[in-house]
């Protein structure tokens, strides 16, 4: 008998480390132990949220200490909901604390980006975005770089859909954070990134057809 196809083999989780196992047991338990675990989890998430906001101190310079504290608490609260909603997904492939931290970092980073842009109009994609490109430092490559930029400019105008063009240029040339654009458009980071990804594939395929991307598959 041949080997079973991989898809039908049972998924065997690795042995969860004792500390992670204790977290899951406490959070899925009842009574006082669960309440205590929830308190410890919130403290852990708050620490991670503060860590993230601390890394973004410059971006949040206009906030008072109380506002920063409030933002950290909101991030920890939302992260707590995320952790508890997805607790069944935790398989012990990392430590529980590392797994939980990422929820708080995501919430804090997203809130900080949006806070930094809260009273600002989003800039239109710059018309002359090619002027923002860094020149290639090598003199011998200058002509090649200019050709690449010219072809890229034409491809952005002709190959992309209006939606792809606006999203790609707003994020890449306009430097608008993906989360901020997602909030204004009522969509998600993942959905917007998919738009960017598809646009990039089109641009790469176009440049490859023109022989301007070494090693790129023309068929893509």
């Amino acid at each position, binding site marked *: 008998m041949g080997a079973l196809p991989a898809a039908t083999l049972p998924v065997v989780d690795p042995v969860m480390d004792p500390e992670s196992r204790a977290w899951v047991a406490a959070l899925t338990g009842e009574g006082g132990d669960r309440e205590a675990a929830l308190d410890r989890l919130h403290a852990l998430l708050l620490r991670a949220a503060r860590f993230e906001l601390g890394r973004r101190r410059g971006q949040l310079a206009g906030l008072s200490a109380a506002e920063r504290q409030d933002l950290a608490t909101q991030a920890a609260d939302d992260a707590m909901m995320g952790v508890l909603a997805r607790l069944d997904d935790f398989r012990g492939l990392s430590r529980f604390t590392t797994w939980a931290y990422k929820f708080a970092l995501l919430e804090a*980073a997203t809130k900080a980006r949006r806070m930094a842009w809260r009273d600002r109009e989003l800039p239109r994609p710059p018309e002359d975005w090619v002027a923002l490109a860094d020149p290639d430092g090598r003199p011998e490559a200058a002509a090649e770089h200019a050709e690449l930029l010219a072809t*890229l400019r034409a491809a952005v105008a002709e190959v992309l859909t209006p939606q792809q063009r606006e999203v790609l240029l707003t994020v890449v*040339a306009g430097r608008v954070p993906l989360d901020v654009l997602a909030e204004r458009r009522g969509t998600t980071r993942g959905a917007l*990134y998919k738009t960017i990804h598809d646009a990039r594939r089109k641009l790469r395929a176009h440049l490859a057809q023109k022989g301007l991307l070494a090693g790129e598959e023309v068929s893509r």
Partner: protein
Amino acid sequence: MMSLVDGLLGPEEPEVGCDDCFTDLDRYVELELAGEDPDAHLPGLRAHLAGCLACREEHDSLKALVAGEDG
């Protein structure tokens, strides 16, 4: 900082999306900190981090936070 051309073209390699990146980010960071090659276990995530600034920032934060605790 990524050049404009690199930003417009994105990573050359196949990549995962933001949701899959979030799902595996904790494992990726622990593999990195353990000195292993995370891309061998989680293909497509490194390429995504190269192409997505938001996910890359959160990766960098998680790595710094966990490394600080382990250190």
